[in-house]
């Protein structure tokens, strides 16, 4: 949950029908403008530029399966990241990016290093302040207008500069906030499509974040709820160091 999501309201959704016909006939805005607008409506460039680190506390639930957990994610301007958490009945779940190497360590599958496109994806996700600095990561193109959950949105195609499959962001025409993303995660387990919707924006230290995100992965719905965010905390460099099992794999 690194970037941009949009708040839906019933009034907004019902108002969209009349607006959309005219809007669809208008020329599409530039993708750069859609992306930059997101930064503006969620807090503004000046606030983003003050950000040095973030610590997020997230609750997760596999919807309908009774499986819940909590997760804490640390990121900072070193572009390192680490998430640690626990899922009830399953055990620990850790993942991170350390000096450009992405890794994962769970009680189920064990420790593993990511490589290729999967590593590139994780490194981009860890890129700090990517909402503001997206031009360092992607080439953007406005791909059209689509309705998402009753809300008319601009569809933006983001193609990684380092290569790989594009991801698609859907930004509300009305609010400028992001409604949905679609991406294909390429890993040794195959190409897996991940769709994520978001809602319930709240402000944390000057920036709006979606506090509810629902990811759909292989028929499972995973609900993530952002319950706390601390910005600009001093995170010791060692915090990002991977656990021993991962370091052993790195040393091989």
């Amino acid at each position, binding site marked *: 949950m690194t970037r941009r999501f949009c708040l839906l309201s019933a009034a907004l959704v019902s108002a969209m029908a009349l607006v959309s016909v005219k809007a669809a006939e208008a020329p599409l805005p530039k993708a750069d403008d859609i992306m930059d607008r997101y930064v503006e409506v969620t807090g503004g460039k000046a606030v983003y530029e003050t950000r040095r680190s973030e610590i997020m506390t997230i609750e997760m639930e596999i919807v*309908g399966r009774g*499986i819940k957990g909590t997760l804490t994610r640390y990121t900072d301007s070193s572009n390192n990241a680490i998430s640690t958490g626990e899922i009830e009945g399953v055990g620990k779940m850790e993942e991170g990016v350390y000096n450009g190497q992405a890794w994962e360590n769970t009680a189920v*599958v064990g420790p593993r290093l990511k490589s290729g496109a999967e590593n590139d994806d994780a490194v981009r996700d860890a890129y700090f302040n990517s909402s503001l600095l997206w031009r360092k990561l992607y080439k953007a193109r406005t791909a059209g207008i689509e309705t998402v959950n009753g809300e008319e949105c601009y569809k933006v195609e983001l193609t990684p500069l380092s290569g790989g499959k594009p991801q698609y962001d859907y930004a509300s025409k009305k609010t400028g906030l992001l409604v949905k993303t679609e991406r294909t995660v390429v890993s040794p387990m195959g190409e897996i499509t991940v769709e994520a919707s978001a809602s319930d924006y709240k402000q944390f230290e000057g920036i709006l974040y979606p506090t509810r995100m629902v990811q759909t992965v292989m028929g499972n719905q995973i609900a993530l709820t952002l319950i706390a965010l601390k910005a600009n905390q001093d995170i010791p460099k060692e915090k990002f160091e991977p656990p021993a099992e991962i370091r052993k794999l790195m040393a091989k």
Partner: protein
Amino acid sequence: MTFARIPAAAVAASLIVAAAGLTPEQRKLNADSFEYAWTKIRDNMWAPMPPGVDWQRVHDELKPKVETARTMQQARAVMQDMISRLKLTHFNIVPGDVYNTLDTAAGRRGEGGSPGFDVRLLDSQAVVISVDPGTPAEAAGVRPGWRLVRADGQDIAASIRKMQAGLLPSTFKELSMTRAVLAKISGAPGSKVPVEFDGAGTRAVKIDLELTEPRGESSKIGFLPTQHVWFESKKIGNTAYVAFNMFLDPARLSTRFANAVEGCLKCDGFIIDLRGNPGGIGGMSMGFAGWFVKRAGIRLGIMRLKDQEMKFAIFPRSEVFGGPLAILVDALTASTSEIFAGGLKDIGRARIFGTRTAGAALPSVIEKLPNGDGFQYAIADYVSEGGRRLEGTGVEPDEVVNWTRDALLAGRDPALDAALAWIHKGTDK
């Protein structure tokens, strides 16, 4: 995340509970549950419906019956009828009472007691294959090789004959029958069930068997009823031997498995005993396989969902066991255990000993229905790396070795002996 089947004993035990009439609200909840389950199956079926199954017709035929069911049992029977039309494993209705009875078992109430021994069907007879240490069964002198003659007043051989005649042929028929036999020895921990054995020779042994807490530590994940998970590790000479009853409770089990491998990296061989293991969390097969495969980019097989597939990739550990690997299986080895054994066999990493597995390997999930019951449904097919579906076929051992009553009475384990002989043969060279 996929799961093992719910123990039949738990399901069967729950059927004696609740017979009261239903309120209009409960009837509506049952109808909603039927609709929910029917729709989930329709939307998640990874292939065309099995031949002869018109899913809409099943709906139209059974929906009125669930709406007019007068008891919870009747409503569940209708839903079981619905899913039985698929003739596939890993579809099940778990009565809400099961959650209550199993969850309270730890508090020594309700069902959930264990007889303290395990059986297999040999020549149409239920024969004890193992006795849990420290249980009343062990204290009463129950021994491997003893034949279970009666349980709670029921003639076991007659029950087996009836099931053999009534159940359709399938690879998992023996699994179903064995679970049904064990379900006859059910009750709360501390309660007693009269059982009669044929000990060695013609000696009849009658015991008021005290049921005990199931072996292992309780584990709860999602809507799966509480399970007890045990892990056993030992060295036989310089060969490692591990056994565990389910791929569950990864926090504890993965650590214990890791310790067992790391403590025996230089051993002559490694034996993993999956006999009777019904599976569990599918992903754990990948994690455990990583201890035995050195090269990245290898997989156990592929899970095929309706519109996507997931490869069961193996991620090698920093240190792996590179010596001979033997896996023991039998007709009660199912699901994740089959994925693990079948995959390692297919890539030439393990040699399999025992008898053909259950062929019950559809990845599934469990959700709660509006009426409070659990609903387990398969979401995918699974094809092992060798290209064969495991559902309905199972894993065929490299060396077929059957349990025999004589061997059990003599204190031997033929499949384990065969695995040890294979390992030592390689070591001796």
